[in-house]
């Protein structure tokens, strides 16, 4: 997810105009830009009372979080998790196959496959969902399966792109050495190729998981209220007024699992990068 950066070269370090104080101010402004929108979410999630002119809450409580401990929220969390993992487990291997195919095909059909793999990025998800909805209903496709199908199509450009860029720098000769040492094609794939592509696979899986985990519009339109995920709960909490604590606590509940997953995916790579 996060590209491993080379250390700034000597001239790069002197490239921002304005000298040290200006650079410090710019850095401060950029951090403010990134962090400020999340500040009220953190504060509201632990606020007890927070009336209008007060800059900070006058009392703190965990009522937002305790309001979340209900069977309804637990079911929604389970639905969100299975939607995320379901989309990721289908879209990751399909993206891998697509990327391998693009690499193996001659220029023109390869381009065509690449075009198809990127095409879902060009269609707004709500249009995709609305158009296919009647067809899915007529074919008696269950709402859950319909949502997964549409979200897999939405996620495929990301997973295919991750494997495309990993394969672009992949050295075929590693596998050839393994084969010449007597490994079967399957062994060469298991012991050489998959470990080398593991970090790309993890990133692809993460992105596809996010597509399912954070989806609102496909679940809303195809799920038709039957599939209640965490974003659906958040949507109804956020569109009503006076639910600040619940909205904030629910928001954090939705953000934290992917952030833990992201840290788990990127920290090992960084530690290895430093060694």
């Amino acid at each position: 997810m996060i590209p491993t950066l080379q250390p700034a070269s000597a001239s790069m370090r002197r490239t921002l105009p304005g000298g040290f104080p200006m650079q410090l101010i710019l850095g401060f402004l950029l951090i403010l830009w990134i962090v400020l929108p999340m500040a009220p979410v953190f504060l509201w999630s632990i606020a007890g009372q927070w009336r209008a002119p007060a800059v900070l809450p006058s009392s703190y409580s965990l009522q937002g979080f305790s309001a979340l401990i209900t069977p309804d929220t637990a079911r929604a969390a389970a639905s969100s998790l299975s939607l995320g993992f379901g989309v990721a487990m289908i879209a990751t291997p399909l993206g891998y196959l697509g990327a391998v195919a693009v690499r193996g095909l001659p220029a023109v059909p390869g381009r065509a496959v690449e075009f198809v793999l990127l095409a879902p990025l060009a269609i707004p998800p709500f249009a995709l969902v609305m158009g296919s909805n009647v067809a899915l209903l007529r074919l008696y496709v269950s709402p859950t399966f319909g949502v997964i199908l549409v979200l897999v199509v939405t996620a495929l450009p990301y997973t295919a792109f991750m494997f495309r860029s990993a394969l672009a720098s992949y050295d075929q000769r590693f596998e050839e050495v393994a084969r010449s040492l007597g490994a079967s094609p399957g062994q060469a794939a298991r012991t050489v190729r998959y470990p080398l592509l593991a970090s790309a696979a993890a990133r692809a899986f993460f992105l596809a998981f996010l597509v399912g985990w954070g989806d609102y519009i496909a679940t809303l339109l195809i799920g038709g209220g039957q599939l209640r995920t965490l974003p659906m709960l958040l949507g109804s909490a956020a569109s009503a007024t006076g639910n600040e604590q619940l909205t904030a606590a629910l928001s954090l509940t939705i953000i934290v699992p992917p952030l833990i997953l992201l840290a788990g995916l990127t920290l090992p790579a960084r530690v290895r990068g430093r060694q």
Partner: protein
Amino acid sequence: MTSRMTPGTGHAALLALPAVLPIVVVLAVSLVAAALQSLGLMPFIGPPQLSGDAWTGDVQTLVRSGLASVYIASISTVLSLAVGFVLAAYVLTMPRMGRLVETLSAATIPIPHLIGAGAIGLLLSDSGFLDRLLGMPDSFPALVAGPGFLAVIAEYAWKESAFVALVVLGSISRSVGDLCDAAATLGATAGQRILRVVLPLAVPSLAISAVIVFVYTLGSYEAAWLLGPVSPEPLPVRAVRLFGSVDLAARPQAMATALVTVAVSAVAILAVVFLLRRFRSLR
């Protein structure tokens, strides 16, 4: 030696099928079904009847929705590119603070737009966090649900600038250092290095992220729905409202609105592809 990594053409075509087939089927089915429904040929109930009412009946509001969406997407794209480029330049040039900025910015990527919209709502609404920080001045503008879609644009610019920074960093971080050193040796000042080296290097990745951000914000529903004014409705908000309407006659209009969104996206993509080709031939 034939290896499975570089499969033969037939084999490769077979490998492509599991990924290509669902995309082609879902895209074709949804676009064709949307077109048929917008023309009354695939009604929810009742006999099909060809009619162009959904397209010609309420052209004015459709155009107003389209203009609102293009306005939101254009301003959001320009802001995301500007802030995203500054973020990337800062990360590249400042070793320690840059690392912190990079990590924080990347941490916002997994946040869904629905949550971003909720957060911006708590920040920018009347008597929201920013209003309180400023001491509740009477002149605080109506950012949420007000004219100009300012809160919607702020949400997109916030989320998408981190995305732009990520794309730009990923594409130029390898080559930019050496080229800047070379330019510095030849006497380029700091400002010249940013404008003549870093910016041109970043143009292709900026153009690609521009089209992705534009198409995404054009078709995104959550922020426009939560933070936008009641009227004019951006295309996705109008389409979803008509789609969910109890009046089944609204369905064709919803489909026409969705197809207009697809068409505007296609025009934007073609324009950027054309401009990128021109840029490459110029170099």
